[in-house]
């Protein structure tokens, strides 16, 4: 469905990605995990068209996205939930959602999409008329996801949805990700919360300093010795020493 091939991205002197290739199939949850600065957000932002690659190609359902502008990419159904939410703080919850559904393809089914979002996040309906800045962190993340859903994505790319949220809220956000997949959406998930995201992923890539270090099913990456040593740590070992 989404095919990223040999992608390289450079910020003036610094090469953020070198030759990254990933594949996302319809109906999957695919995770990109790795430490801070590994290039995870760069990858998502390049697929979204917010950054331009120096090399490589991005295709979605056979359509070339590499040189398309960001708002056109959204119209093809590739939508991101940006890191740190990036809501429109002085607009109401409902207005935030309406902006999400304002492009041509989404307009026809907007009423239906709004019902779906409110069905998934009843809290947002209660707070419909409140400005986005008055929401709690978890509600803001829900609004960011809802806003992205309004543009009727085929694939949703979520950049660190659990960032800065309390553990119990993180649980519910991961539950939402699974619910979205069950409703037929494809999800590309970027996370630092590695254990949790691998547990719900069909497939995963580990990025290290701008390149794919390891890939495999979520379970196999989770079981890998290198992943354990570098990112997770053995649950029993550390206290013994």
């Amino acid at each position: 469905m989404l095919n990223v091939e040999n992608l390289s991205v450079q910020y003036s002197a610094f090469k953020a990605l070198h030759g990254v290739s990933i594949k996302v199939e319809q109906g999957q949850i695919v995770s990109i995990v790795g430490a801070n600065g590994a290039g995870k957000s760069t990858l998502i932002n390049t697929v979204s068209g917010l950054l331009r690659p120096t090399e490589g190609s991005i295709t979605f359902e056979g359509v070339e996205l590499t040189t398309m502008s960001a708002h056109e990419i959204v119209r093809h159904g590739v939508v991101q939930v940006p890191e740190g939410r990036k809501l429109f703080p002085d607009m109401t919850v409902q207005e935030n959602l309406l902006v999400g559904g304002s492009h041509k393809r989404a307009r026809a089914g907007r009423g239906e999409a709004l019902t779906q979002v409110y069905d998934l996040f009843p809290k947002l309906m209660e707070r419909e008329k409140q400005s986005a800045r008055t929401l709690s962190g978890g509600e803001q993340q829900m609004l960011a996801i809802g806003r992205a859903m309004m543009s009727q994505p085929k694939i949703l790319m979520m950049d660190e949805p659990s960032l800065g949220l309390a553990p119990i809220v993180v649980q519910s956000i991961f539950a939402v990700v699974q619910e979205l997949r069950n409703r037929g959406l494809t999800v590309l998930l970027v996370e630092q919360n590695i254990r949790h995201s691998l547990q719900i992923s069909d497939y995963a890539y580990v990025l290290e300093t701008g390149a794919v270090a390891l890939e495999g099913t979520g379970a196999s990456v989770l079981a890998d010795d290198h992943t354990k040593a570098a990112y997770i740590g053995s649950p029993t070992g550390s206290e013994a020493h």
Partner: protein
Amino acid sequence: MRRYREFLIPVVVFGLAGFLPLFLKTYYVHIGILILIWAYLATSWNILGGYAGQHSLGHGLYMGIGAYASTYLALNFGLTPWVGMFVGMAFAAAAGWFVGYATFRYGLKGAYFALVTIALAEAAVYVVSNWKAMGGAAGLEVKYLGTNPFMMQFDGKLPYFYIILVMTLLAVLTAQWLNRRRFGYRLIAVRENEEAAEAMGVNTLGTKINANVLSAVMTAAGGTFFAQYFTYVGPRVVFGEMVSVQILLFAIIGGLGTVWGPLVGAVILVPVAEIARAELGTQFQGAHLLLYGGVLVFTMLFMPKGIVGLVKSVRSRIWKTPDDSVSAPAPEGGAS
């Protein structure tokens, strides 16, 4: 019916304002006209500056284009300013598109965008000053014909008052309409977080250019009225920095990005400035400019959302509606 209720309030307010000149001396009708001119221009500016958050400091460019186009066509071809106004608006649309494309296409924002707009308006002052057909530095005088509705000329002040009253009403209705339209949401989304707007499928470049064009077109119509009322256009008078600065002054003081802000700003500030000018003008020239500066600094420091913003937050405190004015955790939350 409910859809149209929000438009009813402006219509009623302006309808009532229409009775005022019947009880006022000519001088106060003149002040009323000044208020409405600036309210109209500031409302036009507010679409780009307040809604879309792109602070143009060169709206004199569009005002000048409107003023000069209708005046030139009336003098040389006897064209009625009622049509000349639309010619000016067409030219302003082209200029607005060009300025928008030339700046936004290359990602100019904030102070950089403002600087380019100042430069372009200032360049227009010099171009027109050296353009013989446009009267050069001396400008153009609207030929006085006595009362002639066809040429938008009247001996008394009342007809001018009603023309600008209707124009301002239309501008306020446009702002009100934007508040509930997809295009309006896009403008605000661009202001609040341009990158997020783009990531949500908003064509931010097109949105900003369209906002500039709409704002320029409306401003140009104000230019035509200005020329007809003062029967004179000069390069500095209509293209100059005083025009560009005053336009945004009323919008900022009244409340950026609000429907009523520019009008409220003009209603409060224009009379005060006029009194200062009339009372102190001889001993202390430029007293009203000093006043503008002082009020602007005060507004920035103590009520950054302008008068309308202040009223809104006081009202929400009294009625205990969901309080939007209290700053809760910023939605940008978390590290980046």
